[in-house]
């Protein structure tokens, strides 16, 4: 029993102290409910466990990925692992005792400061599960703070189905209706949005870069439409893009959600770090944890979880969210990554997300049988590509060249989506070769 620390002698002494001869005697469970069977799980040594699990993991194909769609890979510097894996961080609990957890509290306060700077908004919490649940919480916040006639929210028609599905669960309880508004040439159709919105709308959502990788060109106009109808304007983005994009607060965003896991978290089968910021007036309606600065008895600045009366462990069914454990350690990692990059490094990384996909599209566009990008406008990390051949066939062809790209269904069109970041940019040549080879074969 690897992590149970008693010697036989100690165990006996403890059993004596509690007055039983066998720990099983301490279980006050009716016989009818006793589990007498086996789970059928075999124990392994540490080495054996590693071999077994790593053996399973190695069964996945070894591919260079050009995949995005909400989960992105950037190089995470070694310091992020080395520092975040320190036991005092990794094995700590939520900071209910701030006097002995100043270190983590300060790191979370710094994460909040980072998000505030990136979004331009007054308040950021210290994490949500992922961008989809952050959007769900934003909609619930809008429902609480906006006394509209109805309960509709508007999302773009190209909102990824996975995000929409999460949102549908979040809006199910309070009976909020999620409607879509049209896009045009891959970006918000402002007129279409204006036609769709009404005073019963509590929130209008738009993402930049959006689902097709396009940087939305006129969110001012979107913001105005929302504002005209008393709806909150919620912007979706990510921590790298926000380092160069206009801060959403500057064009009137009330809430920003999205992904901060683009920092600190490489590709890990879709793990996320939800980002959530909003205007200060909604402070007491914010979901999730907040760290604030205060003072200790020595008069020194000290940090603490604050405004906990919003939270479930105090407010129960009237809490602003049911969130308890969320993504604190990933927020720490994102903060370390951002600190390592500094403002120059972060904006350089963002610039690479602009130039990498642009150059890749230009090269693909030169190939017979491909048009890239499908949409006008500036792209960030990813873009859609038109192919004369069935997209699935191209995907399969690339797969045999050791490359993963994906087909997307864009309103019935059969298209490819390609994502280029710092980690796969050096492999773009292979992608071009594979696509060119396909063209030749077709």
């Amino acid at each position, binding site marked *: *029993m690897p992590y149970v620390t008693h010697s036989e002698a100690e165990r006996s002494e403890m059993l004596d102290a509690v007055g039983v001869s066998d720990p099983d005697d301490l*279980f*006050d469970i009716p016989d009818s*409910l006793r*589990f007498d069977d086996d789970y059928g*799980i075999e124990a*392994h040594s540490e080495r054996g*466990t*590693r071999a077994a*699990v790593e053996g*399973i*993991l190695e*069964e*996945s194909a070894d591919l260079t990925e050009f995949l995005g769609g909400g*989960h992105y890979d950037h190089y995470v510097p070694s310091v992020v692992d080395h520092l975040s894996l*320190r036991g005092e*961080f990794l*094995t700590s*609990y939520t*900071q209910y005792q701030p*006097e*002995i957890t*100043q*270190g983590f509290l300060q790191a979370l*306060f710094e994460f909040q*400061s980072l998000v505030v700077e990136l979004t331009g908004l007054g308040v*950021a919490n210290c994490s949500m599960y992922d*961008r989809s649940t952050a959007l769900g919480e934003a909609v619930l916040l809008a429902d609480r703070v906006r006394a509209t006639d109805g309960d509709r929210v508007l999302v773009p028609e190209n909102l990824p189905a996975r995000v929409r599905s999460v949102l*549908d*669960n979040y809006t199910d*309880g309070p009976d909020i209706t999620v409607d879509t508004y049209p896009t045009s040439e891959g970006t918000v159709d402002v007129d279409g949005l204006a036609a769709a919105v009404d005073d019963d709308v509590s929130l209008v959502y738009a993402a930049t870069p959006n689902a097709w990788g396009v940087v939305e060109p006129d969110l001012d106009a979107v913001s105005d439409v929302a504002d005209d109808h008393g709806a909150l304007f919620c912007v979706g983005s990510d921590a790298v893009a926000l380092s*160069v994009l206009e*801060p959403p607060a500057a064009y009137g965003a009330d809430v920003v959600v999205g992904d901060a896991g683009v920092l600190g978290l490489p*590709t890990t*089968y*879709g*793990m*996320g770090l939800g980002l959530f910021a909003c205007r200060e007036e909604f402070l007491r309606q914010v979901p999730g944890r907040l*760290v*604030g*600065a*205060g003072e200790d008895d020595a008069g020194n*600045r000290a940090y*603490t979880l604050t*405004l906990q009366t919003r939270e*479930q*462990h*105090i407010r129960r*069914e009237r*809490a602003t969210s*049911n969130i*308890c*454990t*969320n993504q604190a*350690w990933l927020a720490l990692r994102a903060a*370390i990554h951002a600190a390592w990059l500094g403002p*120059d490094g972060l904006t350089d990384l963002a*610039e690479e997300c602009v130039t990498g996909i642009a150059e890749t599209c230009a090269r693909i566009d030169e190939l017979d049988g491909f048009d890239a990008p499908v949409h006008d406008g500036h792209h960030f990390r990813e873009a859609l590509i038109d192919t004369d051949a069935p997209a699935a066939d191209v*995907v399969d062809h690339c797969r045999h060249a050791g490359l*993963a790209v994906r087909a997307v269904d864009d309103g019935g069109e059969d298209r490819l989506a390609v994502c280029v970041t710092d980690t796969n940019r050096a492999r773009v040549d292979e992608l071009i070769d594979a696509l060119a080879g396909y063209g030749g074969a077709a």
Partner: protein
Amino acid sequence: APHQQTRWYAGGQYEPLLNEKSTDTVSVESSLPDDLTRDELELPDLAEPEVTRHYTRLSQMNYGIDSGPIPLGSCTMKYNPAFTEDVAAHRGNRVHPLRSDEDKQGILRLLYELQETLGAIGGMDAVTLQPPAGAAGEFTGIQVAKAYHEEQGDGSRSEVIVPESAHGTNFASAAMAGYDVVELPSNEDGRVEVDALEAAAGEDTALLMLTNPNTLGLFERDIEAIAEIVHDAGGLLYYDGANLNSLLGKARPGDMGFDIMHFNLHKTFATPHGGGGPGQGPIGVVADLAPFLPTPQVREVDGDYETYEPDRSIGRVHEFVGNWLVLVKAYAYILRHGDDGLERISETAVLNANYLASRIEYEVPYGPFHHEFVASADEDAADVAKAMLDHGVHPPTTKWPEIVDEALMTEPTETESKARLDDLAAAFDAVAATGPAELAEAPTTTTARRIDQASAARNPRLSWRDL
């Protein structure tokens, strides 16, 4: 004092913020057009050596299980085996979720095997791994129950019954799913008042949420009767997995009549809590509810693994599969232990709780308890907690559940040695012997002295910009 925690100062304050050490405002130059970009970005600007020192120092100003015990009742803060981090660092985890099934067989196999394993442990017929935390698991379970009732033509059921001593998340999750919460009183033994349940259960009842052993560490002996009442009323039973650590190898929620349950992987299966997550809250359900689980599920077909959408799936509760690395670590933890090891976990957790309770002077009003107990302090329980910090240990959960005066809800877990349990007992008793004046001064050996939380909340300063 058995401890002196690190304290770094500069300029009369503790370790400065990154922003206070050095920030730089850069003009943003981008190949994007000016009207889409910001002019400037101001962020901390430190080279790697200073970044490393900053976080090294912050870590030294933090307490984790690697520092000492964290006997927070209901939180099950046990030791996190280091090797699971190495498994999580394996290259095979670096897989994008939008690959085809064919290209991620290793991932799918692990998901499948973990689904099956959790099903066996919980006595459940089907498991979804997707919910990214225990509370998200509760919400997911409630959504599944709701979808089931709707499919049964029972969509009008509007109430979720929750015992007064339940976790706050139960109330909040039920409310989030649109239910009214009906609170159930405890009886004088600290367990569910069956008569009250009988009165509460009816045609409006969608769900009863219970944890068992409950938050007092007491097994709900009447669970079979309780299940019958709820089922007879047409409701479902939800098991809150927070206390599953005491049932491994001993009993299964599925066998008790629960229809839905969640697992807190960071509790029962020791994935690191990381100061507030990531956790993961898979849920298990009985066969009738399996068609409603989130999509995708994973199944095995002729030795290959594939994803599929259950017939009447509620959809997704996370964009992908939640916190993948937590799943990997939990699976490794389970494999490391095997059947016997898992049973030894619950036995030792219960032995440790009972031993510790036998060693302290504070009264423990309810029993027999399993993996946790709730003692009653003579002093303000919050003061007790602060004073315990000076003994180099993390205190228990305080002032909850409220049915015990000045509650000290204590769960030492199985990974504390007898010596550490004796340390904890000594800390409890030393504090009990401490006078009120000294108690009010505590803590003194910690990084920060006692923090005025009320004033921090009155004047919220939530980012560097607010200072």
